[in-house]
């Protein structure tokens, strides 16, 4: 495209407002961050997928000179300079962003960012992963069961989580509440921790539409030690808010199909056509009478 070419040229000319070549310093406490997961073929595969969707449009294909023509130029992940970054540095740069490099903090989950890092490390033969010490303090081991109490009228949903084995309440479990929507799960409240009785109370929005009867499919996820989540409740709850049953096409409008044309319009059209053609046929009838009269006279 011509325009995108012009655009690129213009960006190259004027893009220098970014404080260009100053080194990108990562705070010391972030540098040492290590991945909570072990890089494997699976993570590399997932990373490749995310990379191709999110990164390739600027950073190009690693090892190929197809990076976007921006100033400063996006780094080639296969390059030496790039690979000199520690895992923690890469993670920081991807999450925070700078200048033309966007922050992916809100676009990608941390696990996805680690997957990307695991993928780009395949371009560094000398790379050996240092795995972070897994922090199990906030996680819960073993099977968990949960019980759901809800009173939508008071906008509260209460959950009790217990260990399945010993029926002991779990303290400090991190739970989040979601509602099913057409293309994904909508987070309804912030992440909350269970108290010593294993109880968590979520706020439930009183204006979230359910289906035509007010039913909403909700799920409750619990955070695992490694940052992933497991679903502990997936159920239908009954609410007061019913989905709109309004059908656009029920109204007679100018844009609706022919059978739903405004009545006055149909009547005016048909009336005008009938009137005009009625008169035309009347004229033709008069002409036939003239003809008849003439034949009578000449006889």
């Amino acid at each position, binding site marked *: 495209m011509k325009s995108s070419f*012009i655009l690129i040229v213009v960006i190259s000319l*004027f893009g220098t407002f970014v404080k260009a070549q100053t080194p990108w310093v990562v705070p010391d406490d972030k540098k040492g961050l290590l991945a909570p997961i072990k890089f494997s073929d699976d993570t590399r595969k997932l990373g490749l997928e995310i990379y191709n*969707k999110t990164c390739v449009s600027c950073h190009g294909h690693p090892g190929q000179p197809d990076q976007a023509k921006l100033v400063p130029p996006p780094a080639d992940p296969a390059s030496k300079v790039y690979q000199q970054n520690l895992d923690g540095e890469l993670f920081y740069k991807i999450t925070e962003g700078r200048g033309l490099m966007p922050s992916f903090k*809100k676009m990608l989950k941390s696990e996805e960012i680690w997957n990307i890092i695991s993928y780009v490390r395949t371009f560094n033969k000398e790379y050996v992963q240092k795995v972070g010490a897994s922090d199990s303090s906030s996680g819960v081991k073993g099977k968990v069961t949960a019980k759901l109490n809800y009173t939508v009228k008071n906008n509260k949903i209460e959950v009790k989580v217990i260990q399945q084995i010993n029926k002991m309440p779990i303290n400090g479990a991190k739970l989040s509440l979601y509602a099913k929507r*057409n293309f994904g799960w909508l987070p309804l409240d912030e992440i909350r921790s269970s108290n010593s009785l294993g109880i968590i109370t979520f706020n439930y929005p009183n204006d979230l*539409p359910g289906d035509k009867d007010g039913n909403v499919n909700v799920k409750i996820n619990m955070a695992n030690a490694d940052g992933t989540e497991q679903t502990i409740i997936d159920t239908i709850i009954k609410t007061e808010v019913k989905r709109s049953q309004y059908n*656009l096409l029920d109204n007679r409008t100018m844009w609706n199909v022919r059978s739903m044309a405004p009545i006055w319009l149909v009547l005016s059209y048909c009336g005008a056509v009938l009137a005009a053609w009625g008169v035309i046929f009347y004229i033709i009838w008069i002409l036939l009478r003239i003809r008849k009269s003439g034949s009578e006279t000449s006889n």
Partner: protein
Amino acid sequence: MEDNKDPKENKRREFLKTLGIIGAAGASGAMALYFGQQFEKIKAGKKVRLLTVDNKVVEFENGELKEFKGTTEDFIARGREGLPGKSWVMVIDLAKCRNARKCISACQSAHHLRPEQYHINTLQMQDSELTSPYFMPKPCQHCDNPPCVSVCPVDATFKRTDGPVLIDNERCIGCRFCIAACPYSARIFNWFDPKDAEKFANDPYDIELNVPQKRGTVSKCLFSADRLRNDELPYCVSNCPNGVYYFGDKNDDAVTNGTTKETVRLSTLLKDNAAYRLMEELGQEPRVYYLPPKDRLFPFPEQENKNEDNHV
């Protein structure tokens, strides 16, 4: 599925008489194909319809295997209906668009469009001299008071219960009144034979994808109605690398970001970001909302916007 008539080959009537194998299918390996017990020989070449274990009907013609998706009539009948209870809306976050044009290429390849034919186009905008320039992806706005549908003489373009404005290529007479009426310049016309016309000539026409395109008819953005049927996000939405698009059901009060798959409350998103619609004053009631280009992720080049491609 019995008694399907192929519109392209009206002269041939074919009946798929038995699909009796369905019951046994589940038990077997996934790759296996089960042949229908009966098939009919057709004058020109052999054509067989088969049922796969994942309940797809495939067509076997002259040694070529392709998925049989349905006939033109089936597609039109269901395509005019709309998905009950849904009300699709799109939200475009102008702060995130940096003109990567992945939405455009995904759309063009799905709908067999030439490079200069746009169902969605990203425009360089600058509202006035001192205000900031920005990139604006512009699909069809799928108005609730669509002027293009109002003027159509033959019900070829129509509004569906779930919101999208679709077009029926099999009925369009090519008068282009809809193009004249659209204030968003969202419609295009097949001035010549469409791209790869011969390749797709015998495919059934999918009204929800508007493919195959036809010469002499109008084409337009369809909100990817074919994808919505399968609960998938539209082509443009799911191919954006920058998280520009949110798409969802207004009746759900939720939209999902095509890049991050993050789902948010529609009302909150619109309220918090002071969302607006294009040319509200015309009263067309668009279904596409824009979030203002504030705190843009990608600074716009400091150039005067009136380059030669910009014909305001």
